[in-house]
């Protein structure tokens, strides 16, 4: 795990409404960065010609499923890899259709930047506001608004300014600082301002989309969270060579650990000291978030899959009552009293959703108290009771240790993305129309951190 190269990379996701040209934009990015190889391009030219098109349809580069190509829409997330001399990119191209918002959630859960597309002729629409709320909720640090099809409004600066301003107000109300949101006028079809600057938008002096993606600062996973690692698997070889070896394998979720560190094992609250950090390539002097390692402790303890090894001084407090935000991803609505499974780290436990305390209106950015149910793609506040204590952190502090899955115990499907605490400032508004009006015209800036669930 040591000695490999570390190339600057950016994980990004696209989002936007149906037919606003996301797949074409991604196709254009791949094409103009020369990330498309000859046989792929040849296939696109062939199919485009067969369909009677005069220009190659670049969306065919990414819409790979039969149904997608038949209907000209994106159904599921496609992951793409491309690179420039300055940076490499992992891009999750997510669908715009409201039915598939769960795939936008999938793409956004690990993204460091989201590109939201709007059609310049239609401006900010319901789906734009919904997607912005979802990416804000999931903690995507930076946004790009790509005002697409700018050629179809005759490269009109006033159209671009109006759309940008409306979106900027919405993003600000969701808690984004002005620097974290950038608007760019583009035409994915023609190629304006995607990779090369356009002569058609002389009034625009900002970067092209690619220039922005190459230069936007990438925030690493926050390391201010103390050390946390869920035990995934206990390694016990019981071989002649390693008769007594007992290692706790996992991926460091947050923070930093070194041999000699005193650690607490939750939920039991056991104490020990890190004896060694093992990998197949030899022991490490330290391990940080993202690294898969094996910890050897100085004491013989009863530790198993799901337990969390963490720093003693700021050990996560195991709780059985969790206030959380859910992004509901199932057609079957959630009602109070629902019995579910929760997967947090490496532990899956039974749980009951005791109460639905609020539903979030992502259009008006207000919360509506005591909803009867939470429907597909709706965001709500709940209180959850778990059968086993879980050492959770607040999602606003850690995307890793503050996240959980809600799983259907019968079918096994993933029902919701769960976020501990109140990860979105806008979720805390009181729901009065006045607050909503204020939110869209006079951005609320966060003044205090979200409360930690206990």
């Amino acid at each position: 795990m040591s000695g490999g190269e570390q190339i600057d990379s950016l994980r990004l996701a696209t989002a936007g409404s149906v037919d606003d040209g996301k797949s074409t934009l991604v196709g254009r990015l791949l094409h103009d960065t020369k990330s498309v190889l000859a046989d792929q391009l040849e296939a696109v030219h062939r199919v485009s010609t067969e369909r009677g098109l005069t220009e190659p349809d670049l969306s065919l580069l990414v819409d790979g499923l039969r149904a997608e190509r038949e209907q000209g829409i994106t159904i599921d997330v496609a992951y793409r890899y491309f690179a420039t001399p300055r940076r490499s990119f992992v891009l999750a191209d997510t669908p715009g259709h409201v039915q598939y918002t769960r795939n936008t959630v999938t793409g956004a859960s690990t993204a460091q930047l989201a590109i939201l597309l709007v059609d310049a002729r239609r401006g900010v629409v319901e789906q734009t506001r919904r997607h912005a709320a979802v990416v804000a909720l999931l903690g995507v640090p930076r946004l790009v608004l790509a005002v697409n099809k700018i050629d179809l409004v005759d490269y009109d600066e006033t159209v671009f300014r109006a759309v940008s301003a409306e979106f900027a107000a919405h993003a600000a109300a969701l808690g984004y600082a002005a620097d974290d949101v950038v608007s760019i006028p583009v035409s994915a079809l023609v190629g304006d301002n995607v990779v090369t600057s356009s002569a058609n938008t002389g009034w625009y002096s900002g970067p092209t989309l690619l220039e922005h993606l190459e230069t936007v600062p990438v925030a690493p996973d926050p390391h201010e969270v103390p050390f946390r690692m869920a035990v995934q698997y206990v390694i016990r070889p019981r071989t002649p060579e390693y008769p007594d070896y007992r290692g706790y394998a996992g991926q460091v979720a947050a923070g930093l650990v070194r041999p000699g560190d005193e650690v607490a094992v939750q939920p039991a609250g056991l104490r020990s000291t890190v004896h060694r950090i093992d990998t197949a390539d030899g022991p490490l002097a330290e391990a940080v978030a993202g690294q898969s390692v094996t910890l050897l402790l100085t004491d013989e303890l009863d530790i198993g899959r799901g337990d969390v090894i963490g720093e003693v001084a700021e050990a996560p407090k195991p709780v059985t009552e969790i206030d959380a935000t859910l992004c509901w991803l199932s057609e079957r609505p959630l009602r109070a009293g629902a019995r579910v499974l929760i997967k947090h780290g490496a532990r899956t436990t039974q749980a009951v959703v005791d109460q639905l305390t609020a539903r979030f209106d992502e259009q008006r950015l207000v919360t509506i108290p005591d909803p009867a149910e939470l429907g597909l793609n709706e965001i709500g506040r709940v209180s959850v009771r778990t059968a086993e204590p879980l050492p959770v952190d607040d999602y606003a502090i850690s995307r890793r240790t503050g996240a959980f899955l809600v799983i259907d115990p019968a079918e096994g499907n993933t029902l919701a993305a769960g976020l501990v605490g109140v990860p979105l400032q806008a979720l805390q508004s009181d729901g009065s129309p006045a607050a909503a009006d204020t939110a869209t015209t006079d951005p609320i800036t966060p003044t205090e951190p979200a409360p930690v669930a206990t």
Partner: protein
Amino acid sequence: MTKTSVGPKPAEATIRSAGAVVQQPAPRRRTPTGLDTLESEAVHVFREVAGEFDRPVVLFSGGKDSTLLVHLARKAFWPAPIPFALLHVDTGHNFPEVIEFRDRLVARYGLRLEVAEVQRWIDDGRLTERADGTRNPLQTVPLLDSIVEHRFDAVFGGGRRDEERARAKERIFSLRNSFGQWDPRRQRPELWNLYNGRHRPGEHVRVFPLSNWTELDVWNYIERENIELPSIYYAHRREVYLRDGMLLSSGPWGGPRETEQVQERLVRYRTVGDGSCTGAVESDATTVAEVIAEVAASRLTERGATRADDRMSEAAMEDRKREGYF
């Protein structure tokens, strides 16, 4: 105490990779997130499966991707042995060098190998040989039968999202019904690095630890880890004939036809599959470093260059995945 001192890795660590790409005509497909990150992610996936499933198995063809799977699985459970068996769906159309490599690898690491021979299914009438003689599409039935027979509940594959458009849509954990079918519309959301392995009796989960690797990542990692591969991945002189723009080797799968002329060429293989539909590419790359330079400069994708089975229709891969193929 809060620790904030974690910074990026030392700058000198980037020197080697920078040197590896500097002569390339276009800077495409560079390591997306760093080999360490990809390795840690794959190790995490292996351990999740070991923790959540009862009877996992690693699909193993002897090719570079499945060899990488074995290497990463060994790292994930070191110093314990790999807690899974390997399954080779054997079309009978193998390159001898690959079978020799497979058996040597299994012996060296003390692995358990199950072999499902397509020929056995043909002999007992469960499968019919195709008119074109290619057996790649025939692998699906022996694979699904073996999964049922051994009650495998998680099946690792070496599939990568950069290989093909349909594969780009694949999750790392992919639920399959009792017919092994993939339904792209019903895929579970895959959130953060929390993988949902729940499945009902009869269902199983396909697992792709190499999802985020590119062909170039695979080769860079092979170089870094000094991983041995079958010799056909490196340039050698071989008797081949041209069919549909591909250089095929003669073998038990038939060919050359009367109109097809055999000639000796200096070639290597970019993928290992059924010999009837896996073509060689002309190459003089005899070392890993030379292969890396060649792959980085190639204007053809790995599958586009050498896999006839992907050329059958516009959505050939998706159709096979829906049937239960990888």
